[in-house]
């Protein structure tokens, strides 16, 4: 009623969302977490960012990067730049997305020929005329002689039982934890949206079959199912497996929701108008029904990310976590619990970081829910 008339749906969402201080804080904290995780090699590394020695300037940190990090660091800013300049650059800005994709793929192929350095030098101890070390001058896998020491200027969050810097491990572990939350939800969304859309659009027996399938999946406690699948499989528990298993057991909520939205929207006349014009099923689903269900889908996905991160930590605790090069926050916490009596920092710091991240996702989800649910609007 008091809304400005000339705002689009997404602007209206943004306005309602940004009224919620907790949600807004959560949103920025998540963005911050992703930025920190992306920049982890520049923030926690035993390679210097800039090093001047023997009259030569070098950037050792760049040599420590993995190929995948190179790709990321080049592609993301590049894509952003192209997208930002799409109006002056291209005659048809609508095609901007396509051009971004082409450029990114070309860069990917080019980078495939770049050989990674296998650089194990440690700039922290190497002499130099000038060197700028990262904020945390430790690599996540590197052991210092001081095991189990508390927080100090040298080790901001203390060290673990083998002398590894906890702060560096938290920072690098962010990538694993954030990726698990994100990717597993993308998988869950894909499966859930597909099944939900089919059930809600075609109804009748399709709906009947899919609803039974959803019910079957919901009868299995997901933690139990995941444990069994991982426990009975012989494969190494790599990150992909964990993500896939969390995603493939966690799609039922989304499916129910999308089904409900499709049933509701199907009763309105705009999809029927499209059908009367001769639009095919795919067009009605993708252009009319799905975009109008996006809000609630986004809400469940956001909550889903939070619960996936929690779920992964439970798996780590039970000893069925992944064997990733960098540990997840869940791994750090469960490693640290054996020393909880005297080395509180081992659980406290990763615990707080994980807590804040999960809460941020939940507040964003809650804020989105209040913003998208028309039934909750104050009359």
């Amino acid at each position, binding site marked *: 009623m008091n809304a400005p008339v000339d705002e689009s749906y997404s602007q209206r969402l943004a306005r309602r969302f940004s009224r919620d201080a907790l949600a807004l804080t959560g949103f920025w904290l998540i963005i911050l977490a992703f930025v920190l995780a992306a920049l982890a090699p520049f923030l926690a590394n035993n390679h210097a960012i800039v090093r001047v020695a023997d009259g030569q300037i070098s950037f050792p940190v760049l040599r420590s990067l993995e190929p995948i990090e190179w790709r990321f660091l080049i592609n993301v800013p590049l894509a952003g730049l192209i997208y930002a300049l799409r109006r002056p650059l291209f005659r048809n800005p609508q095609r901007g997305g396509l051009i971004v994709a082409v450029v990114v793929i070309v860069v990917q192929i080019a980078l495939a020929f770049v050989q990674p350095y296998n650089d194990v030098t440690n700039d922290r101890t190497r002499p130099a005329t000038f060197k700028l070390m990262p904020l945390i001058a430790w690599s996540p896998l590197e052991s210092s002689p001081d095991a189990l020491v508390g927080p100090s200027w040298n080790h901001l969050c203390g060290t673990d039982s083998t002398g590894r810097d906890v702060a560096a491990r938290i920072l690098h572990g962010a990538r694993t934890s954030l990726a698990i939350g994100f990717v597993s939800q993308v998988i869950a969304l894909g499966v859930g949206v597909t099944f939900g859309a089919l059930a809600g659009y075609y109804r009748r027996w399709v709906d009947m079959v899919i609803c039974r399938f959803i019910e079957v999946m919901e009868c299995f406690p997901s933690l139990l199912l995941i444990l069994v699948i991982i426990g009975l499989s012989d494969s190494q528990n790599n990150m992909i497996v964990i993500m896939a298993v969390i995603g493939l057991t966690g799609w039922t909520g989304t499916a129910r929701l999308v089904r409900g939205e499709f049933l509701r929207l199907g009763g309105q*006349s705009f999809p029927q108008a499209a059908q009367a*014009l001769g639009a095919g099923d795919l067009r009605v689903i993708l252009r009319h029904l799905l975009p109008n269900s996006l809000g609630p889908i986004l809400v469940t996905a956001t909550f889903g990310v939070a619960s996936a991160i929690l779920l992964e930590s439970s798996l780590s605790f039970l000893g069925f976590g992944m064997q990733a090069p960098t540990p997840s926050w869940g791994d750090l916490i469960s490693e640290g619990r054996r020393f909880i009596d005297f080395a509180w920092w081992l659980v406290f710091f990763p615990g707080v970081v994980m807590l804040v991240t999960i809460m941020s996702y939940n507040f964003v989800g809650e804020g989105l829910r209040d913003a998208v649910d028309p039934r909750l609007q104050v009359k």
Partner: protein
Amino acid sequence: MPASTDAAPILEVEHLKVYFPILGGVFRHQVGEVKAVDDVSFTVQRGETVGLVGESGSGKTTLGRAIIRLNEPTAGVIKYEGKVISDLSARAFWPYRKKIQIIFQDPYNSLNPRLSIFEIVGEALEIHFPQMSRADRRERVAGLLKQVGLQPEHLDRYPHEFSGGQRQRIGIARALAVGPEFIVCDEPVSALDVSVQAQIVNLLQDLQEELGLTYLFIAHDLAVVEHISDHVLVMNQGKIVEAASAEAIYENPQHEYTRKLLAAVPKL
């Protein structure tokens, strides 16, 4: 019946039935059926308006939707320009979607809130004239908007920026986009204020004159139907209880239900 019946009718409906199953019992088997449209026959001449009036649940909307195949007929025949269209497959019916169009009742949920007016009206062109360039489409949509009394500047706005009457105009533009001959108007003015209702009714009449359109005009308001129609069909419980010219319905109602309906209309 009309005096000049020498021309072939554009639409013939013969013994049309649309039944919906009532599922019940433990096994959700069919325990009965709703006879939404029950053995209905009528014809529509090119260029005229046939009004279809009835109370809620009379089956008038189902009948209108059956003609444009949003509901599947259970039995009976619908002929368009003499050809049977009621038993065509979805693919075979497709060309007829350019000829037969529909305008919906509720101006608030008949437009996709996430699409701009250009996208909503242009979708019809995208579907039926895929070879048309975007620029041509924009030009055509702008022309359609002008035709229904909106500004070409409205092209890139979204439905929620428009009033109920303006939305109904957009719905009319969408139906007109494919260049139809026959339009099912499903209670197009029922949700509108009386002043807006008059504007839309006038617009529909102007368009009919200009484009030679044929209307099946569905409404529950007898006065509006009498005003716009050449012929009126009165529907009750799935059946047409009376069919007559608009004047005759009021002057000389034959069926008891029609009289009851007339008596219920408050007089100014």
